[in-house]
C-alpha cells in the first residue's frame, strides 16, 4: 500500500511536470482546478483511510463511512470529469492525449487515496472513466478507440484489484475487531479474577482475624491428631509460637484427658472416632504447655466434613477461671449446708436445754418448800443429767461433721456412716411426719474415702427425699416414707447404698441433668442445685458412681462403691 502510494505520487508529480511543459498556458489555467481536486483528494483520502482503519466500532460504522465516501467521490468525480470533457479544448492529438493521460492518472490517484473503501473506489472509477471512454469513442479515430478499450480494461482490472485488496482489508479489520473484542473480554475476565482474588483475600484475612481474635486455642489436626495449624489463641494459651505448635500430637503433647491418661493411642481412639460420632462433646482435660506447666481446659473436637481423612478442628478452652469459681461455689454451698445445719442444731440443742431449765427451776421450787421431797429433787437431777448427755451427743456429732476434707482417703465402714446420717436426720423426719426406714446389715462393709464427705452425700440424698415426699404429700396425707438400705454385692465386690422415697419421682427430661451443677427443680431460694453435683464428685473420688431411677412410687438413688477388703 505504501509503495503504491509513493508510486502514485511520483506518477502525479511526473504528470504535473509533463502537463506544464506540453500544454499551452491557457490549457494549464483551465485544468488547474483538477489539480486542486487531486491535491485535496490526496490529502483528504489518507485522512479518511486512517479514520476508517482506526474505527474500532462495528461493521455498521464502517459501512456508514463507506457510503459517505462513495457519495462524496461519485459526486465530485462525475461533476469534475464531465465538466472537463465539456470545457477543456483539445486542439491537437498531443493535447488530447495529455488530457487523457492526465485524467486517467486521476484514476490512480483515486485508487491510491480511496483504496480502503471499495464502493467509493468503484463509484469513482466509473464516474471518471465512463465519460472519458465515451469521449474517446466519440472522436472515432482508431488510436482513440484503442485507448478507450485500454481504459475499459484498466478500469475493470482496477475494480477487480480493488476487490481483492478490499477483502484483505476487511479481513484484517475483522481480525482486529475480533482481537480487540477478545482482548476486551480477556481484560474483563482479568478484572473479574482480580476482584475475586481481592475478595477472597479479604475474606481469608477476615476469617484469620476472627480466628485470631478468639481467645480459645483452635487447632486443625490430621487424622492422627497431629497439629497442622494453630491460631493466635493457641500460641497465647500455650505460650509459644503457632509454628512451634504445628507438628505436635495434640493428644500426646498438648492435652490429657486426665493426668494419668497421656497415652496417644487410647486418647486418639476415644477423641477421634472414625465412625459414628463426628464431633466430640466438650470434656475436661488438662492442657500441657511445652514449658512443662499446665492448665485446666475443656476440649471439643469436630470433623470439618464426614469421612476418615477429614480435617479435625480441636478447640481447647482455658477453664481455669470457671474451675476456680466452681470451687468457690462448692465452698459456698458447703457453707450454706453448714448454715442450714446450724439452724437444725440450734433447734436440737434448744429442746434439752428447755427441759434442763424447767427441771432445775421445778427442783428449786421443791427445795424451797417447807418439806422438800428429796426423791423428787433427785429424779429432777437425773433428768437434767440425761438431757445434758443428749446435748453432748449432738455436739460430738457436730465435731465429727466439721472435720471436713482433712487427711487422705481412709477405709471406713459404710454401714456405720449411713447409720450416723440416718440418726442425724431422724428427728427432723419425725417432725415432718416422714417414716424413715433403714435396712442396714449388721456386718461392717468397708469402703474407701472421706467418711465425713460421704456422710454429707447421704444427708443430701435424705434431705432431697424429704423435700420430695413433702412436696407430693403437702397435707400429711398419703405415705410419707423414705427408705435407706445398704447391700453387699459380693460377686462384684461392691457396696450398694439405696435411698428411695415416696415423692413423685424425677421427670424423664430431668433425669439426665440432675447431677449437673446448678440444676434444681426446687423453687428459687430453696436449692442451690449443687447438692447432687457435689454428691457425684464425692462418690466418684471414692471410685464409685451414683445414679437415679424412678421406681413406682418415687425416686431411687443408688450409690455403688467398691468394697475394700480390710486387713484387721
Amino acid at each position, binding site marked *: 500500500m505504501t509503495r503504491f502510494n509513493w508510486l502514485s505520487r511520483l506518477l502525479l508529480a511526473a504528470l504535473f511536470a509533463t502537463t506544464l511543459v506540453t500544454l499551452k498556458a491557457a490549457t494549464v489555467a483551465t485544468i488547474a482546478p483538477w489539480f486542486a481536486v487531486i491535491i485535496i483528494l490526496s490529502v483528504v483520502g489518507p485522512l479518511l483511510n486512517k479514520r476508517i482503519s482506526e474505527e474500532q466500532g462495528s461493521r455498521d460504522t464502517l459501512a456508514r463511512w463507506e457510503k459517505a465516501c462513495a457519495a462524496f467521490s461519485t459526486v465530485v468525480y462525475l461533476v469534475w470529469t464531465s465538466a472537463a470533457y465539456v470545457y477543456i479544448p483539445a486542439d491537437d492529438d498531443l493535447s488530447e492525449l495529455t488530457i487523457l493521460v492526465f485524467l486517467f492518472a486521476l484514476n490512480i490517484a483515486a485508487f491510491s487515496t480511496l483504496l480502503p473503501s471499495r464502493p467509493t473506489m468503484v463509484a469513482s472509477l466509473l464516474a471518471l472513466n465512463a465519460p472519458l471512454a465515451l469521449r474517446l469513442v466519440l472522436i472515432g479515430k482508431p488510436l482513440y478507440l484503442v485507448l478507450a478499450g485500454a481504459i475499459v480494461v484498466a478500469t475493470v482490472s482496477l475494480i477487480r484489484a480493488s476487490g481483492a485488496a478490499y477483502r484483505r482489508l476487511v479481513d484484517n479489520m475483522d481480525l482486529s475487531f475480533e482481537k480487540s473484542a477478545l482482548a476486551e473480554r480477556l481484560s474483563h475476565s482479568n478484572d473479574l479474577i482480580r476482584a475475586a482474588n481481592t475478595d477472597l483475600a479479604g475474606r481469608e484475612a477476615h476469617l484469620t482475624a476472627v480466628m485470631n481474635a478468639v481467645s480459645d486455642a483452635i487447632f486443625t489436626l490430621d487424622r492422627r491428631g497431629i497439629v497442622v495449624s494453630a491460631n493466635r489463641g493457641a500460641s497465647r494459651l500455650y505460650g509459644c509460637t503457632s509454628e512451634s505448635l504445628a507438628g505436635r500430637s495434640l493428644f500426646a503433647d498438648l492435652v490429657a484427658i486426665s493426668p494419668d491418661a497421656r497415652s496417644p493411642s487410647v486418647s486418639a481412639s476415644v477423641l477421634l472416632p472414625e465412625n459414628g460420632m463426628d464431633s466430640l462433646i466438650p470434656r475436661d482435660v488438662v492442657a500441657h504447655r511445652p514449658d512443662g506447666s499446665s492448665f485446666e481446659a475443656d476440649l471439643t473436637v469436630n470433623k470439618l466434613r464426614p469421612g476418615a481423612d477429614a480435617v479435625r478442628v480441636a478447640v481447647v478452652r482455658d477453664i481455669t477461671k470457671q474451675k476456680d469459681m466452681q470451687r468457690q461455689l462448692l465452698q459456698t454451698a458447703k457453707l450454706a449446708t453448714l448454715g442450714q445445719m446450724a439452724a437444725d442444731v440450734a433447734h436440737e440443742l434448744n429442746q434439752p436445754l428447755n427441759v434442763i*431449765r424447767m427441771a432445775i427451776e*421445778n427442783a428449786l421450787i421443791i427445795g424451797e418448800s417447807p418439806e422438800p421431797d428429796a426423791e423428787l429433787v433427785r429424779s429432777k437431777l437425773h433428768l437434767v443429767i440425761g438431757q445434758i448427755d443428749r446435748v453432748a451427743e449432738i455436739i460430738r456429732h457436730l465435731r465429727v461433721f466439721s472435720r471436713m476434707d482433712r487427711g487422705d482417703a481412709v477405709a471406713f465402714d459404710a454401714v456405720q456412716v449411713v447409720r450416723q446420717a440416718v440418726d442425724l436426720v431422724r428427728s427432723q423426719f419425725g417432725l415432718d*411426719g416422714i417414716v424413715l426406714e433403714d435396712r442396714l446389715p449388721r456386718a461392717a462393709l468397708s469402703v474407701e474415702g472421706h467418711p465425713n464427705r460421704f456422710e454429707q452425700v447421704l444427708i443430701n440424698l435424705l434431705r432431697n427425699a424429704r423435700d420430695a415426699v413433702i412436696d407430693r404429700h403437702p397435707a400429711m396425707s398419703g405415705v410419707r416414707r423414705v427408705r435407706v438400705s445398704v447391700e453387699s454385692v459380693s460377686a462384684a465386690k461392691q457396696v450398694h447404698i439405696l435411698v428411695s422415697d415416696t415423692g413423685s419421682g424425677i421427670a424423664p427430661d430431668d433425669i439426665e441433668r440432675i447431677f449437673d451443677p446448678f440444676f434444681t427443680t426446687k423453687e428459687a431460694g430453696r436449692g442451690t442445685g449443687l447438692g447432687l453435683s457435689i454428691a457425684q464428685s464425692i462418690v466418684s473420688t471414692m471410685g464409685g458412681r451414683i445414679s437415679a431411677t424412678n421406681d413406682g412410687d418415687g425416686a431411687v438413688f443408688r450409690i455403688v462403691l467398691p468394697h475394700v477388703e480390710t486387713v484387721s
Partner: protein
Amino acid sequence: MTDPASNSRTGSTIVVIDDDPLQAGEICEFLNRLGYDCRVETSGFAALRHITENPPALVLLDIRMPGLNGIETARRLAHLKPRPSIILMSGHADMVAEAHRAGINVHGVLEKPIPLRLLASFVRRKFG
C-alpha cells in the same frame, strides 16, 4: 391457792401441747404446783380430739411439732367455743413471726428455754 376451774379429766383449765413429753411434763408439774389444773397432750390431733367438747381456758402450744404443727393447731383451736387463749412456745423466733403472719391471735409468746416464773406471770395475767 384455790382451784379456779373444774378438776375433771376432760375439763382441765390449761392444756400443754408439746411433742416432747419431758418439756410438757415439767410445765404441767409447775402449773399444778401453782394450783392450776393442767394436762399434757403430745400431738395437735390428739389435743383437738380431747378438748373439742369442753375447751380449756388456756393452751400452751409448741409451734414445731410433727403431724399437725403448732400454727395449724392454733388455727383450729380458734374455731372452738369458748375460744381458748393461746400461749405459743418456741425456740425459733422465726416460727413466732410465721404465727403472726398466719393471723393467729395469741395471749403470749414464750421463747425456749422457758423461765417458769415468766410462764407463771403469763398464766396469772390470764386468770387475774
